[in-house]
C-alpha cells in the first residue's frame, strides 16, 4: 500500500495535517510576523499557540492510548495515569540523574513501558470488569505514593515535582519550539495511523469482539488474554511516549500526572470526543484543553466547577461524544437519502 492511498482514504486527516502545519505561520501573520520570522521562532503569539498545540498533541496521544484499551478492547483501567507517569519520570531521571542521551532515554522508556504492560497483564486473567478497574487503581496508587515519597526525593522531586531536566538544545521547547511542534505533530499522526491499522487488523478486530462479548470470543476459539495483553502493551507504549514528550516540553513534571485525576482526564477526553472512535481522542483533547485554558483565564481557579458541569452536560446530552455522534448522524442522513431515493426510483434498488 502506498502512502498516497493512506491519505486518499483519510481525506480529513490530510486536511487536518495541512492545517496544523500551516497553523504557526497563520497565527504569525495575524501578529504581523512573516513566515521567516515564525521559522526563526521570533513571533511571540505564534510560539504561544504552538505551545498550546503541543500540550494538546501530548494529551491527544495520551487519550488515544486510553481509547485502545477502554474504547476498543473494553478494559476499564483506573491506573492509566501510571503508564504516562512512568514515561514522564523515567525520561526525567534518565536525563537528569543518569545523564543519558535522548535516544538511550527513549530506549529505557520503551522497555519500561513493555514491562509495565506485562505487570498489568498479570492481573488480566484473574479479574474482569470493575474488579480490573479497582486492581489497576491499586497498582497506580502505590506508584503515586512511591514517587511522592521523600526517600526518593533526589530522583523524583517528591511532592514538588521533577524539575531541572536539561533538554538538548536542538529540541529545546524554549528556543526551538517550532521544531518541537513539528516533531510532536509527526509523532501524533504516526501513532494515529498505527492505531487505525491496529484497529482494522485481525488482532484489533478480536479486541473489538472482546469488548462486545468476551465469553463469546472465547467460545470462538480466541485465548482472549493475549489480545488484551497486546492492546495493553500498545497502550502502555503510547502513554509512555506521551509522558516522554511531556517531560521534554514542560519545565516541571508534577506528581499529579500519576494520580487518579489524570486517569479521569483521559476518560473525559474520550467521552467528549467519542469512545472507541480514535479521532475522538484528538477532538476531545482540543475541547478539553481549550475549555480549561479559556475558563481559567477568564474565571480563575473556580473554573473547575464550570468545567465539571460541562462534562456532565456532555455525558447527558452527547453520550456518544462529538465524533461518535457525528458518525451516527451522517450514517442516518445517508440512510435517509437512500430511502428517499428508493421512494422515487422503486425499481433501481430491487
Amino acid at each position, binding site marked *: 500500500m502506498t502512502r498516497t492511498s493512506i491519505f486518499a482514504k483519510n481525506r480529513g486527516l490530510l486536511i487536518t495535517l495541512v492545517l496544523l502545519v500551516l497553523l504557526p505561520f497563520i497565527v504569525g501573520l495575524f501578529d504581523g510576523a512573516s513566515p521567516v520570522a515564525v521559522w526563526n521562532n521570533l513571533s511571540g503569539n505564534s510560539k504561544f499557540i504552538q505551545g498550546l498545540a503541543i500540550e494538546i498533541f501530548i494529551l491527544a496521544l495520551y487519550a488515544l492510548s486510553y481509547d485502545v484499551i477502554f474504547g476498543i478492547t473494553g478494559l476499564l483501567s483506573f491506573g492509566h495515569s501510571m503508564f504516562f507517569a512512568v514515561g514522564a519520570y523515567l525520561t526525567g531521571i534518565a536525563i537528569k540523574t543518569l545523564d543519558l542521551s535522548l535516544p538511550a532515554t527513549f530506549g529505557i522508556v520503551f522497555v519500561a513501558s513493555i514491562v509495565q504492560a506485562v505487570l498489568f497483564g498479570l492481573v488480566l486473567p484473574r479479574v474482569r470488569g470493575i474488579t480490573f478497574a479497582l486492581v489497576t487503581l491499586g497498582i497506580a496508587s502505590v506508584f503515586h505514593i512511591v514517587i511522592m515519597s521523600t526517600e526518593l526525593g533526589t530522583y523524583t522531586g517528591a511532592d514538588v515535582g521533577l524539575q531541572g531536566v536539561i533538554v538538548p538544545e536542538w529540541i529545546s521547547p524554549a528556543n526551538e519550539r517550532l521544531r518541537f511542534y513539528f516533531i510532536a505533530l509527526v509523532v501524533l499522526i504516526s501513532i494515529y495511523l498505527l492505531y487505525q491499522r491496529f484497529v482494522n*487488523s*485481525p*488482532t484489533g*478486530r478480536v479486541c473489538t469482539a472482546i469488548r462486545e*462479548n468476551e465469553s463469546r470470543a472465547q*467460545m*470462538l476459539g480466541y485465548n*482472549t488474554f493475549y489480545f488484551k495483553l*497486546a492492546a495493553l502493551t500498545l497502550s502502555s507504549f503510547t502513554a509512555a511516549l506521551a509522558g516522554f514528550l511531556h517531560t521534554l516540553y514542560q519545565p516541571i513534571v508534577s506528581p499529579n500526572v500519576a494520580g487518579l485525576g489524570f486517569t479521569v482526564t483521559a476518560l473525559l477526553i474520550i467521552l467528549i470526543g467519542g469512545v472507541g472512535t480514535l479521532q475522538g481522542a484528538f477532538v476531545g483533547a482540543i475541547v478539553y484543553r481549550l475549555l480549561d485554558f479559556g475558563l481559567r483565564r477568564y474565571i480563575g481557579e473556580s473554573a473547575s466547577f464550570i468545567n465539571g458541569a460541562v462534562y456532565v452536560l456532555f455525558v447527558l446530552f452527547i453520550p456518544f461524544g462529538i465524533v461518535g455522534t457525528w458518525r451516527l448522524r451522517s450514517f442516518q442522513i445517508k440512510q435517509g437519502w437512500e430511502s428517499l431515493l428508493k421512494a422515487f426510483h422503486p425499481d433501481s434498488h430491487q
Partner: protein
Amino acid sequence: MTTDIIFETKNLSKHFGALIAVDSVNLKVRKNSLHAIIGPNGAGKTTFFNLLSGNLEPTSGQVIFKGKDITHQPVHRTIHFGIGRSFQITNIFPNLTVFENIRLAAQAMGRDNFKFWQSASRFKNYEARTSEVIEQVGLKNRAYTLARTLPHGDQRKLELGMILAPDPEVLLLDEPTAGMAAEQVPDLIALIQGIQKSGDRTVMLVEHNMNVVMSVSDEITVMHLGKILAEGTPAEIAANKEVQTAYLGGLYDLNV
C-alpha cells in the same frame, strides 16, 4: 451409518454446593447422528452441555472426544478440537455486522490473529468462508446489518452461522428454536438437518419442542434430576412409561 463413538462421558458429575446438577452421567454419542437430549426443566441438560463444551469444570468424571480426554481443557480450545456450541440465550456480538460476527468465527481457525500490521480485509480466505456460511444460513440480504437489529429468528441463524464457520465435527445446540415464532421453526430445523447431512457432522440437541425432537432425532437421551432416565430411538422413548411419569402434569404430549 457408522457405529463409531465420537463423544463419550464417563461418570461425569457437577455439583453446585449441595445441589447435584449432573450426577455421574455415562453417555455415548455415535458419529454422524442427531442426538437429542430432553428432560423437564432443571434436569441438568444445559449444565451437561457446559461440561461438554468446557464452559464449566466437572466435579468429577471425564469427557472424551474422539478417544482423547478433553475434560480439563480451557474453553477457547473447544472449537479447535472440532466442537461448536450455541447457547440457549442468543450469544453474539451485538454491535458488529452479521458479516463481521461470522468472519471473526472463521478467522479464529487461522494463524493470522496477531498480524496487527495488516488490514483484516487482506485475508480473503476468511471472507470467502464467511460469504459461504452466510449464504448457507440464509442471511445474505442481512450481511451488513448490525447483529443487534436483527429479528430474533435471524439472530438464532447468525449464531448457528458462527459455530458453522469453523467447520466443526460436532455441534452442540442448546435449544436452537427457543423463542422463535412457530412458523419459523421448520425452516431452522431443515437448516440444521442440512448442515448435519452436508458435512458429515454430529449434532447434539437440547430441545423442548417435542414435535421437533421426535421427527428429527436418531437417538434420544432423557435426563431427569441430573441422571439419565432413558435412552433410545424416538419410538422407544415415546413408549417409555418412566419418561411419561417424569413429564408429570402432561406438559408434553409425547405421542404427537
